[in-house]
């Protein structure tokens, strides 16, 4: 059987409304063929609805959805060449592993033998050879997840969708499975849309990330861009930790701004902002703690200090509010009340618009 291979996905001004509630509001984006794109955001931001619209499980209220350049907006899920791995895995409890995996080709009418062979090859791929006659209830969570992946892969869909696939696994297993998913995607050259609310997971597996907030896209880009160049306070805060500080831009020259953070003045890239109020997102590891008075540094006092194995979590109260600082390596604990001076590292300090 010849397959179409991976296909691109494109959303053009797509909205989804349930009565008065707008779950997805005028969203446009595209996913290139053969790439893994993550839809990232807090719960209720519309990411799962977006994914279900790609699958055809929800029909968009407005806009156009294209898969492989073909308009599929009104097509039902059964007519789209898309498969999905569900959060709950949705394995059919009354069917064995092989019957689950062979379900797609079976209902397509490909014949028992063909369906079985196709299913076996995918089960082998996910490392479940030898488990084919078990029932889902007899497998561990990780194994069930692999069955779900194998079942979704069997028809070699143009687009593969993952809806929070790791949320039912324990923390250690998560890291391994997400690497496996990424490897599988790259080896088989699949177009994958992947929904998660875990930013670390998103950074680890994605070619690109689409951050969603309140039914809209907050920012999209490569993982590194999002972390280092957040477009707004929401993205800065959601991807990694960030201290958001109200500041004033004093002057801009040659694309560099002179920014007043409390009593100190710090130069940084202007990123198109002009003179006036703004915000600065500072990563906790980009605040450096000094123990001697420094005119270029922000004075403060230690509020709390917690030991977390490979790093210290420190709260420092300053003129611009309480700041969260991380110190890596085996450092000494800092006593509350101790005066410190915070200076800013070269990276991890980003100017963002005030709202």
């Amino acid at each position, binding site marked *: 059987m010849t397959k179409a291979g991976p296909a691109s996905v494109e959303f053009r001004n797509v909205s989804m409304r349930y009565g008065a509630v707008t779950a997805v509001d005028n969203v446009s984006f595209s996913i290139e063929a053969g790439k893994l794109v993550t839809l990232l955001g807090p719960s209720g931001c519309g990411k799962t609805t977006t994914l279900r619209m790609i*699958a055809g*499980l929800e029909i968009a209220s407005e806009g156009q959805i294209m898969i492989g350049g073909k308009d599929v907006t009104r097509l039902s899920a059964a007519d789209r060449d*898309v498969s999905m791995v569900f959060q709950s895995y949705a394995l059919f*409890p009354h069917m064995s592993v092989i019957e689950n995996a062979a*379900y797609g080709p079976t*209902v397509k009418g490909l014949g028992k033998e063909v369906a079985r062979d196709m299913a076996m090859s995918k089960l082998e791929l996910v490392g479940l050879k030898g488990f084919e006659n078990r029932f889902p209830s007899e497998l561990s969570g990780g194994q069930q997840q692999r069955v779900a992946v194998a079942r979704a892969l069997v028809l070699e869909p143009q687009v593969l969708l993952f809806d929070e696939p790791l949320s039912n696994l324990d923390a250690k297993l998560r890291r391994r499975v997400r690497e496996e998913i990424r490897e599988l995607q790259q080896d088989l050259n699949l177009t994958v849309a992947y929904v998660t609310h875990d930013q670390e997971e998103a950074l680890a597996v994605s070619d690109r990330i689409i951050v969603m907030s309140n039914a809209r896209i907050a920012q999209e880009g490569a993982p590194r861009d999002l972390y280092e160049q957040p477009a707004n306070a929401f993205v800065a805060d959601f991807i990694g930790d960030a201290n958001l500080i109200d500041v004033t831009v004093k002057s801009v020259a040659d694309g560099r701004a002179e920014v007043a953070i409390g009593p100190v003045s710090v130069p940084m890239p202007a990123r198109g902002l002009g003179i006036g109020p703004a915000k600065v997102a500072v990563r906790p590891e980009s605040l450096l703690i000094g123990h001697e008075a420094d005119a270029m540094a922000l004075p403060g006092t230690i509020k709390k200090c917690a030991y977390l194995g490979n790093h210290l979590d420190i709260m420092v109260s300053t003129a611009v509010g309480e700041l969260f600082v991380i110190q890596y390596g085996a450092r000494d604990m800092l006593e509350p009340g101790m005066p410190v001076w915070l200076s800013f590292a070269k990276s991890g300090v980003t100017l963002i618009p005030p709202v």
Partner: protein
Amino acid sequence: MRAATKLALLLGWLGYALLPWYFVEGMSLTEFGWLAGYPLGKAGSALVLALSGQAPWLLPIGVALVAATAVMSSRDTPRVATVLVWAGLAGMVLFFAQGFAIALENQGIPWLAVLLGGSGATQRGMGAGGFLAILSLLLLLCHGLAYRGVCRGDLFTTSSIGIVILLIGLFIFFPVATILRSALVDQAGAFAPSAFVARFFDSSIWGLGCLSANVNCGVAWNTLVLAVLTGVITTLLGLACALLILRTGMPGKRVMRALTVLPIITPPFVIGLALILLFGRAGLVSSLLYEWFDVPRSRWLYGLPGILLAQVLAFAPIAFLVLIGVVQGISPSLEEASQTLGAKRWQTFSTVTWPLLRPGIANAFLLGFVESMADFGNPLVLGGNFEVLSTKIFFAVVGAAYNQGQAAVLAIVLLAFTLGAFWIQQRWLGNKSYTTLTGKGDAGLPTPLPRRVQWLAGLVIVPWVALTFIIYLVILMGGFVKTMGRDHTPTLEHYRTGFAIDFSRGIFFEGAAWNSFFTTLKVAAISAPLTAIIGLLTAYLLTRQNFRGRSSLEFATMLSFAIPGTVLGVAYILAFNVPPIEITGTGLILIIAFVFRNMPVGVRSGIAGLSQIDKSLDEASTTLRARSFTTLWRVVLPLLRPALVAALVYSFVRSMTAVSAVIFLVSAEYNLATAYIVGRVEAGEFGLAIAYSSVLIVVMAIGIGLIQLGVGERKLGRRKVVALSSSVSDPINQGAVS
């Protein structure tokens, strides 16, 4: 046009051009006398009848089919959709228009008949041809809608919705509407609202004479008082029993469980019958009391006390089933929390346990109330001069003073009562979560009952359980003695009368009961799977598909719950006695009555079953390219097996035990076991009646066993999910009216 649509079209032509359009009496597959004159004559096909000018009003229906056929090979989907929608819609409208406009002489709608070119003409009820034609037109309409993108273009979904709506409309709404219409016309058939008002406020319904003078009260009050008493007493008994079983070390849990199955397989009037044999004027106990203590024989049993006793015995197990669920649902940790906060046993009971029980108690009460309202068998057997609505309706239809209008008015009153109770139940309890089950393991131990409550409960239920045992003993023994209460010589005479088989010339079923027995089995066996299919399909549509008007459909199915059997029986006889659907006196009407009487149970058990199946399983199947029918068949149905069993068992059993609806619908040719037994009771042949009843009970027990074996258990890995013990009894838990 897809293949399925072509098939629907083919069906339409089959019905229109080939099959007899009208219902032919005396149709058989071995003798073909009824075919005389085909394709003209009484077995003629619509096409020929229309073209020959005998029934020109049938021609437009054919035109609709021609229109649909014209676009058969078109690839222009939007155009095909439009043509199908309009052809189907117009065809259906014309179909019903001619059916209702042109009926028997002096019936129908004259002005519409003139319009359709059938002025003054008459026609008989629709038959197989008409049925196929309307089915085909409906399917064409639904397919057309699907081509337009309704329900995501799924033919199966739109077609099922269409079929379910048509069936409910024809067999629930149309009969009930007919009752309303009959109530508004006088004996001659003219519109007479004043007659309705007069009948409605008649003192025989609402009179309060019994309070002041020595006359009978209105039948509505009788019914109401009886229902309230039954509701209260059954609830108290059920509660006492549930508390004792769950909260004390009382032995007999199994016995009580078994006791709850009995009312399911016992025809409702059998309890009344057994009571007559025990406490009637010539009953066993009455005789003993007379001989030993000189207590005079009396007729105290006939009237309110007797009916009440019978209904309490019959319906208390249902209340018990409801309440045991509620008591089990109260998490012990709540009571333990109360105790750790320093509350005494009695304080815990009155401040924590009781308030949590209250909604469940209200539910049990309403169930008993509605069951009592709808009960027909016991009041018929034990009523005496004490009339209730259901029996009065019966006598208004079959009695000497045939009064269709009065029957309709009484049916409306009864319907209003049950709908009211049902409405309260839905409104008040529908959205209240009154169990505190969380799905988390709750390790606590339930608090033992306070001593006072224990004593009280024990005092109440011991006589009840004892009486129930005696009653079933009487039912089983009664058939083997000459005359219960008078002559206890063992005999097989009753069984011989009913169930003798003559082996002298092959097998000849000689007994008087065989005919009705076989009819009952046949009708129950045919209607049970139909009920299950329609019920589960409706449940699937209601829970898993999104379409406009879904909530109305849900409301309609729920409504059919609250229609008492007597009302449905009257409605059917009024609605289906005349064309266009003229099926009274056939076996078909019995099957249809059972299907739509029991459908709500199928719907409920389907909804309950589906709610346990995660929706993502359906979605997973859909994303793997399965259409909704494939999903239903391969994923939902296998997982729905327990619900399927419940629906099958329950509709089978109810078909065998039902009296109220079918007593209007049976005929000499198609008599049913229960109707036959009621006839024996009225003729005073108690021996045969009781023997037949026990045969029924045994047969039903066997039937339940067979169905359980046949459908089997749900296979989920090596763990067997044994859901039967609860699922069989579950619909009782939920079913409202019998």
